[in-house]
């Protein structure tokens, strides 16, 4: 699996599709970490070849504009960009 898990309180399955160089992606990861929420992330820019194509398709399914961060919660809800209010609401922070 390509995802790196960051431990914390479980508020459901939280996946962050990120770029290693992106400021908003860093803010999103830091926000969840600071609030002690468990999440997994993948830095898509660091992937190559088939692995990258597969993850890119996954992101596009949720967010056709293929922008980052794309946060998918419980395989059912997608938050695009660092939207603190929406994250607080959805993850009950």
């Amino acid at each position, binding site marked *: 699996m390509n995802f790196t898990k960051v431990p914390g309180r479980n508020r459901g399955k939280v996946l962050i599709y990120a*770029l290693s160089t*992106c*400021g*908003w992606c860093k803010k999103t990861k830091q926000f969840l970490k600071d609030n002690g929420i468990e999440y997994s992330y993948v830095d898509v*820019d660091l992937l190559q070849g088939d692995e990258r194509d597969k993850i890119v398709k996954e992101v596009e399914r949720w967010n056709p504009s293929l*922008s980052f961060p794309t946060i998918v919660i419980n395989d059912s809800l997608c938050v695009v960009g*660092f939207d603190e209010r929406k994250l607080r609401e959805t993850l009950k922070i």
Partner: protein
Amino acid sequence: MIEISDGEVEKLYNKLKKEAEDAGYFLNSDTEFTKGLVKSLLINEKRYGYWACPCRLASGVKEKDLDIICPCDYRDADLNEYGACYCALYVSEDVANGKKQVTSIPERRRANPLERQNNFPMSNLKYPVWRCRVCGYLCARDQPPMVCPICKAKQERFERMI
């Protein structure tokens, strides 16, 4: 892992800040955040050979990524509409002075793809007119300048307008 020293970041940060301010642009005053993005530009320079936008997925093929080389083709439109570029490396004066907050903004790139202009109206002007796709600077001469005097975008970012 690509290593970038603090000295390299500092040097580029100071250069970009000066160039921005000389031309009426502003870097984000959250220096920690901004220096993080400057470091990312240096990482992308080593990875791809050009300053691919740190907040977008670059293809690694320069021709395909021309519109997202920093400063990107979308910066000025985003500054006008949201007070910040997509990464929030560049911000409006109000944001730089703390009068307005920035947040993550929508991606303009796919919603409104900017076509490169290939057909220009016939004219009897003595020189063709070139337009910088980043800042809109116009000049009439045989070839576009090597570097845009306003926004420092390179020659390849110009399109022929007339």
